[in-house]
């Protein structure tokens, strides 16, 4: 029991460093859950963009534009000031700027319509859809004018067409709670497990593996098996505490719904498997590194690399094909795949069970592999010494 108690004494004395990574995780999850996962995606939804309009024309076209797109996006009229526009794009006050030149409405009925202008910040995929919508809006106007309609009839007709939309619904097998805060919290839990797991276990192992401590321990009456069992028990208890904390956090963010969610057992099984992987990484880092600077470096490298490549911070849908081929071998990618699948789960079927089991087994085997590699490394180091 001495080593078991020592484990937690060491954790307590290093709690402030561990709190740093816990703080980053809590900050990240709090903001992300409130912004991205605040409502379950129970239906199809399109992004609402902030769009700025520079209206030098101030005529029927711009009024039609504002009315047409005003219901779908947040439109704001701004002055034609290059500096103000650049500032707005720079601080992401708006994702897209449309410039309607003076005389544009008149030019629609002339030989050649004037050119519209746009500015956008690179990286907004939703702005791409808006631009497609915008082009179709212009196309409709020209089509209606070509049909012989007057400008007034054209703009009226365009507004009438706006209400013609197909009915969109989600399939019956889709869970209404998909993309909710419970899914969001569990999606980011690997960052917590990896960073805190590595930091906590490394700090304890650094303290225990100091030469003078090791020398005294070697002469102690406690056998090596008992000491290792004490350590392993400490790690297991810490892992279970982290898992329980994740479940509690999910319950808090979901306002009490997580504990009655039928998906919770699957989320916890998945989280348990990534926890095993994370703790084995912590053991590896603790045995390989000798200083806190090295430990901090390893925490950042492992947590950020695995979380980015696993599709935790950036969705896998933006990965290229070559990237996906490599990321498929990353354990956190299997975790994310499972988490998404559990989030969307409406019923348990064979395919669900097969995929979940396959990825969970992969995670556990990865953890065991890292543990074995560490043992080999430690043994080789001892032989050399």
């Amino acid at each position: 029991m001495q080593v078991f108690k020592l484990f937690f004494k060491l954790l307590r004395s290093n709690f402030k460093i561990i709190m740093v990574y816990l703080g980053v995780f809590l900050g990240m999850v709090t903001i992300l859950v409130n912004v991205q996962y605040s409502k379950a995606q129970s239906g199809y939804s399109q992004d609402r963009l902030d769009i700025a309009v520079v209206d030098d024309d101030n005529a029927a076209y711009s009024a039609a534009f504002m009315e047409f797109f005003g219901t779908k996006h947040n439109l704001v009229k701004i002055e034609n000031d290059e500096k103000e526009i650049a500032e707005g794009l720079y601080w992401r006050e708006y994702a897209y700027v449309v410039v309607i030149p003076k005389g544009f409405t008149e030019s629609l009925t002339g030989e050649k319509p004037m050119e519209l202008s746009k500015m956008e910040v690179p990286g907004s995929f939703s702005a791409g859809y808006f631009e497609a919508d915008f082009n179709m809006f212009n196309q409709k106007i020209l089509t209606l004018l070509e049909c012989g309609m007057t400008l007034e009839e054209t703009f009226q007709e365009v507004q009438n067409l706006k209400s013609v939309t197909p009915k969109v619904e989600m399939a019956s097998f889709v869970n209404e709670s998909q993309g909710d805060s419970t899914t969001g919290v569990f999606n980011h839990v690997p960052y917590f497990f990896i960073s805190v797991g590595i930091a906590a276990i490394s700090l304890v192992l650094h303290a225990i593996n100091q030469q003078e401590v090791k020398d005294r321990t070697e002469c102690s009456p406690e056998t090596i098996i008992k000491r290792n069992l004490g350590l392993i028990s400490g790690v297991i208890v810490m892992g279970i505490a982290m898992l329980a904390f994740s479940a509690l956090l999910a319950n808090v963010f979901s306002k009490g719904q997580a504990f009655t969610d039928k998906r919770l057992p699957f989320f916890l099984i998945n989280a348990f498997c990534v926890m095993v992987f994370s703790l084995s990484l912590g053991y590896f880092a603790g045995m390989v590194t000798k200083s806190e600077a090295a430990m901090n470096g390893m925490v950042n490298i492992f947590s950020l690399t695995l979380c980015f490549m696993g599709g935790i911070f950036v969705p896998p849908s933006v990965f290229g094909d070559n990237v996906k081929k490599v990321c498929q071998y990353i354990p956190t990618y299997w975790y994310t795949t499972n988490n998404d699948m559990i989030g969307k789960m409406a019923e348990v079927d064979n395919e669900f069970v097969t995929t979940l089991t396959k990825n969970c087994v992969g995670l556990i085997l990865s953890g065991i592999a890292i543990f074995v590699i560490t043992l080999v490394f430690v043994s080789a180091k001892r032989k050399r010494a």
Partner: protein
Amino acid sequence: MSGIYKILSELRSWPTLFWSLAFPILLSTIFKFMFGGIADATTFSESQVGVIVSAEKSELEKEFLTVTKEVKLGDASMFVVQEYTDMADATAALKAGKISGIIDVNQDFAITFKGNGVAESLIKVYVEQYLQNMKLVEDAIKLHPENIEKIIGAVSGNISKSVTVKAIELKGADKNPFSQYMYSVIGMTCLIASNMGCYITIMIQADASALGARRSVSPTGKAKIVFTDFLASYLLYDVLSMMVLLYMRFVLQTDFGKNMWPVVLATLIGNFCGMAAGLMIGVCARGSVRKKDGLCVAFFMGSSFFAGLQWGDIVRIIEKKAPLFNRINPATLIVNSFKSWAVFGDITNFFINIVTLLVIGLIFLLIAVLKLRRTKYASI
């Protein structure tokens, strides 16, 4: 002379140097690998769509199928159409991931999805346009029946005019949407210098280390010792960060804009601010060396998090809720200085950011100097 010894002693602490260098190089390589192919990911590929039609196809169904199969985006077909006569079969295909959406022609073109993605948005927009074109033809014929041929021609794409939307390019050269992450890595690299700054104070404070105790009673003034150590560490860290910058520029081909000098300047000032922050933390924080190290980690991790290292959109969220924080967070200032130059080509905003960073660094330094002056110990 003592500056040279300081540099030599830092060089011997190779694990610290290694992690200061390894972390940004490894992370930027990972980001380059992940986001370097973003152009491929956003390049269009056909969407699989299921269309429910009757066994005996009506004219409307035949027409819709023909148009859907033939519609193109650029040179490529927009959709690969799978025909179904039964909703159950189509739903099974949707669940299995064989199709991205189901269009039921006989239920007013009702669409069924299982998620919210690129393919789903494309299907929705296409069906919407199809329905709106049908209504457009109907209404146009009602209003101007004499122009029926023109109407059909216009809807088929025979329009004599077109509206072009010209893009006004931003002045910067960098158009990569994920450069934000590369800049965040550099920002974090600059702030990791706080560890070195903290270490300087540990080596000067009598209650922090044996060397600090010896130096406190040495005839050399504390100001001279701190200044020399700071300068030596700063120069060494500048060399490390320049190695990282060169790696990112020439090996990873990261586009920092037309000129490298603003990037180099921003990095040097970022290093100064990071090191000064470490100095201030080391002097002001009471407690063990470990606690001070922890505070340095909290500083650079927290600052980098709010600058968008883990999640790029956080800067936008903070700009809406607490814009003042973006103006004083060192990592955000470093990232914004890169962005203002590389993306927007805006030298004014660039200088505002780096001058603010410099002022913050000087404030940290001033606090550290004032706290260090005439420190006396009742007991160490």
